[in-house]
C-alpha cells in the first residue's frame, strides 16, 4: 500500500475522485430535497389556481418589504458562502473562518426577520385554526386560511433548513479553526455550500409566489 494523504479515504484513487464522489452524493440528496419542496409548491400551485382571488387578498397581508430585505440578506449569505468555499479551495484558513462566520450571521439575520414576521401573524390572528380572523375581515376567510397554511408550512420548512444549515456551518467553523481543511481536502465546506445555495434557491421561488402575487 503506497502512502497517501491522510485526508484521502482508501477506496478512492485520488483526491479529485473523492471530491467528485462527495459532490455527486450531495446532489443526489438535493434531488430528494427538490422533490420534497416540489410537493408543497405543487399543492400551492393547485390551490392558487382554484382560489386565486382569495390567495391574492391573503398575500397582500404579508410584509413584502421585509420579504425583499430577507431575499437580499439570503443572497448576501450565498455570496459569503461561495467566498468561504473559494477560500477553502485556496487553503486560506483565516478568510475561510471569517466568511463562514459571516454566513452564520446573515443566516441568523434572516431567521430574526422571520421571527418578527411570525410574531406579527400571531398577533393579527393570521394563523390558520379556530383563532383565525384578521381585522378588517377578509372576503374569503376559509380560503385565506389555506394560503396561510401554505405560508407557514413552506416558510417553516425553509426556516428549519436554515437552522440546520447554521448548525452545520458552526461545526465547520470549529473544524476550520482546528485546521482540518486544506486545498487538498475541503469537501465538507463545498457540500455545505451546495446545501446553503439550495436553500437560497427555494427562497428565490417562495418570495415572489407568497409575497408578490396580487400586488398589481
Amino acid at each position, binding site marked *: 500500500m503506497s502512502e497517501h494523504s491522510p485526508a484521502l479515504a482508501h477506496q478512492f484513487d485520488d483526491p*479529485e475522485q473523492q471530491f*467528485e464522489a462527495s459532490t455527486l452524493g450531495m446532489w443526489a440528496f438535493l*434531488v430528494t430535497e427538490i422533490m420534497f419542496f416540489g410537493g408543497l409548491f405543487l399543492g400551492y400551485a*393547485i390551490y392558487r389556481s382554484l382560489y386565486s382571488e382569495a390567495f391574492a387578498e391573503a398575500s397582500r397581508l404579508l410584509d413584502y418589504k421585509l420579504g425583499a430585505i430577507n431575499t437580499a440578506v439570503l443572497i448576501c449569505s450565498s455570496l459569503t458562502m461561495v467566498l468561504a468555499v473559494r477560500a477553502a*479551495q485556496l487553503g486560506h484558513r483565516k478568510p475561510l473562518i471569517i466568511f463562514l462566520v459571516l454566513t452564520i450571521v446573515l443566516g441568523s439575520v434572516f431567521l430574526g426577520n422571520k421571527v418578527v414576521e411570525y410574531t406579527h401573524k400571531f398577533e393579527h390572528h393570521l394563523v390558520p385554526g379556530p383563532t383565525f380572523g384578521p381585522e378588517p375581515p377578509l372576503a374569503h376567510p376559509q380560503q385565506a386560511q389555506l394560503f396561510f397554511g401554505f405560508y407557514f408550512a413552506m416558510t417553516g420548512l425553509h426556516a428549519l433548513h436554515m437552522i440546520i444549515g447554521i448548525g452545520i456551518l458552526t461545526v465547520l467553523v470549529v473544524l476550520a479553526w482546528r485546521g482540518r481543511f486544506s486545498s487538498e481536502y475541503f469537501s465538507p465546506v463545498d457540500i455545505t455550500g451546495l446545501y446553503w445555495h439550495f436553500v437560497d434557491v427555494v427562497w428565490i*421561488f417562495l418570495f415572489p409566489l407568497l409575497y408578490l402575487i396580487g*400586488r398589481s
Partner: protein
Amino acid sequence: MSQHVIPQRIYILVFVTLLLLTLVTVDVAFYDAGWLNIYIALTIATCKALLVILFFMHVRYSPRLTWVFVGAGFFWLMILFVFTLGDYLTRGGITGLGF
C-alpha cells in the same frame, strides 16, 4: 487539485445581478399585467435560480455526471408538475371542496 477556482469578480457579478433581479421582480409585481404577472415573476425567479445553480453551486464547472443528476432532479419535478396540473387545470375548475 483540479477543482476550478473561479475568479472573485465573477461571484461579485453574479451577486449584483441577483440583487438587481430581486429589485426588478418587486417592481414589476406592482404593474398590472393580468395573468402574465405570475409568469413574469416565475421567469425572473428561474433566471435567479439558474445563476445560483450554475455559478454559486459550480454546476457550470462540474463533470457531466453532475449535470445528469441535476437535470434528472428537475426533469422529475417537471413530471410531477406537468402531469398533475395538466389534470387539474383541464377539468374546468374543481368544485365541491367545501369552501
